[in-house]
């Protein structure tokens, strides 16, 4: 029987993969993807809790729909920014984007 704990485990694994990616990747696009991973991990958590704790109410599911929408918007903005950065600097490697550093 697949229970809440399994969903939570998957979500946790996804989240940690996302964190690891954010901390280690040097490519902005990859970092954005990792952020998506973390967001989806949270989405899984929300749906799972909603399903197992309060099956009658769809609050969690409705919430997730909003999250996905916002995430989509965020990706759109984020990718647009990355595109501009690439256009100006010919790179998306964050170690090279250090103009503001002391």
């Amino acid at each position, binding site marked *: 029987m697949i*229970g*809440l*704990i399994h969903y*939570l485990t998957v979500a946790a694994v996804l989240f940690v993969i996302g*964190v690891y990616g*954010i*901390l*280690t990747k040097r490519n902005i696009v990859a970092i954005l993807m990792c952020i998506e991973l973390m967001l989806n991990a949270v989405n899984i958590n929300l749906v799972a809790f909603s399903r197992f704790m309060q099956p009658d109410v769809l609050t969690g599911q409705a919430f997730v729909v909003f999250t996905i929408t916002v995430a989509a918007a965020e990706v759109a903005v984020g990718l647009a920014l990355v595109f501009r950065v690439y256009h100006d600097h010919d790179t998306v490697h*964050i*170690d090279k984007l*250090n103009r*503001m*550093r*002391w």
Partner: protein
Amino acid sequence: MFTQYAVHHAWFIPLLPAVAFVVIGFFLRRTPVLSAIVAICMSMISFTLALGIGYGVVAQHITVEQPFVERIPWVDIAGLSINMGVYLDPMAAMMLVVVTLVSLLVQIYSIGYMQGDDGFGRFFAYLSLFAAAMLGLIIAVNFVQLFVFWELVGLCSYLLIGYYFHKVSAREAAKKAFMTTRIGDFGLLIGILMLQILFGTVDFAQLTSTVPEYVKEYGTGMLTVVALLIFAGPLAKSGQFPLHVWLPDAMEGPTPVSALIHAATMVVAGVYLVARAFFLYSVLPDVMLTVAWIGGFTACFAATIALTQRDLKRILAYSTVSQLGYMMLALGVGSVTASMFHLMTHAFFKALLFLSAGAVIHGLHNKNDIFEMGGLRHKMPVTFVATAIGVLSISGIPPFSGFFSKDDILLAVSQVSTPLYVIAVVTAFMTAFYMSRMLIVVFFGPENPENSPHEAPVTMMIPLVVLSILSIIGGYIPYAYHFGEWVRFGVATHEGLNFNIALLSTLLSIVAMLLAWLVYGSGKVSPDLLSARFAWLYKLSYHKYYIDELYLWLNHTFVDGLGKVLYWVDINIVDGIVNGLASMMYRLGDELRHWQTGYLQQYGLVLFGAILIMVAYLVLSAPVFVTALWGGAY
């Protein structure tokens, strides 16, 4: 009837000149004639009211035991309530009459003297304010009100001494006067504050009744300090010894101002304050002795300086310092009557002398050195007679006014202290000498061909005539009508003239005058020979004992020295701390900024690491949390 009205509306007396000041200052400055009319009309009404109050004293409506007191609250906060009001006793009434009269006469005189001056309106505005401040001071009901007007008097003296503000010397003199008197005012203010702390009140009437009980209970230690602090105010204002330096320099103002300052409004404020606070001084014998000695010393000291001065107004200035010393001496030996009597006669004859001097200077087109004058008695007969009356009066020749008041003082002093009496008599001798010297050098002798003197205009004559009459009768009439029974502190001490004292002082004065004639009039003894014979004494006196130089030196050495030390402290320690802190922060920041790598991922690592640690802590430290988590899952 009128007396009742005047007494109940005594607050009009200072108010009217104040109104004149505002009206002239704001609307009439550019119209000389109108401003003079307004100022003089207001002074005249004030004088009439003052006369009404004076009559109230004569008619025994107002006595020392039953003064007229009226108060309205001014400041009322928790623990402190201060009134403004009117306190009329015979002393205040006498002062009101004298001050309004002298300021009225000075204003009339100024019409002629200041004719054609650019600041004519401004001058009358200041004169009015000056009179208003002094009158407000006289009717003060408590120390705070007195202090307010006291400072206002100081301000007006500053404005008037510096009236010719385009002259550097006038500006400097004004500053000197203001700052020197401020030194004393500081002590006065502290004294007043201490009175408020000790007694919870600064009201004259209330203090009069509480001070004796306080002394009985707590002794005189604290009160001595208070009285000395309060005395610092009169010390500066009335030009007593260490702080007399501003008074001779105050001559930089126009001559009518000098007359006003010296005779009525400014310098007598100090004497009046001590007389007003006599309930305090009379219970403190040590302080009284100090006052007496300072007064006596000042009287003698200033007289020796006056002996050799060449500037007409400066001689008169030092004679004022000397006469003020006399008044302080009289207060110090406990005779308010003698002091106030002398204050009154002095106001008359000193105003007369200054206004005559003004007429001389006016007639000679601003020449001040008496040795450049000479022989003026033919061309300026009225001024000559007026000056002669003034000189006879200040020298104490009977029956002129100065004789009665001076002998009153001498009598009072002789009953208390023989050394002080000797000082006072010597001073009287010197006074007669230097005043006669001035009279003889200016009005007798050969005429100086460079001068083209002319007699003063009629507006300047009127005050001279009035003051001459007052200088003649102003002593005998109060004496005959027992001045001492009206203006006094405690029981009346007026005992009439002591024949021996009067005879001695009169004889000495006559001898001094003859001596002056011998040296300066007849030419039998050359003054130059005398000054050469006693060269160092002459120099000492002529340079005013180098007091100004001493103060300058003290200022350079100590004040500037202290300034240098403080400058060093400021630059090295104060600034050092501030700059040191700043540079420390700068260096710290220089080190710490290496932590700010700018790598976002490093920050993220720290963030998540921290979260991990916190979660680990929560999990490990709270088993309940663990069971809840796992328990809920299954």
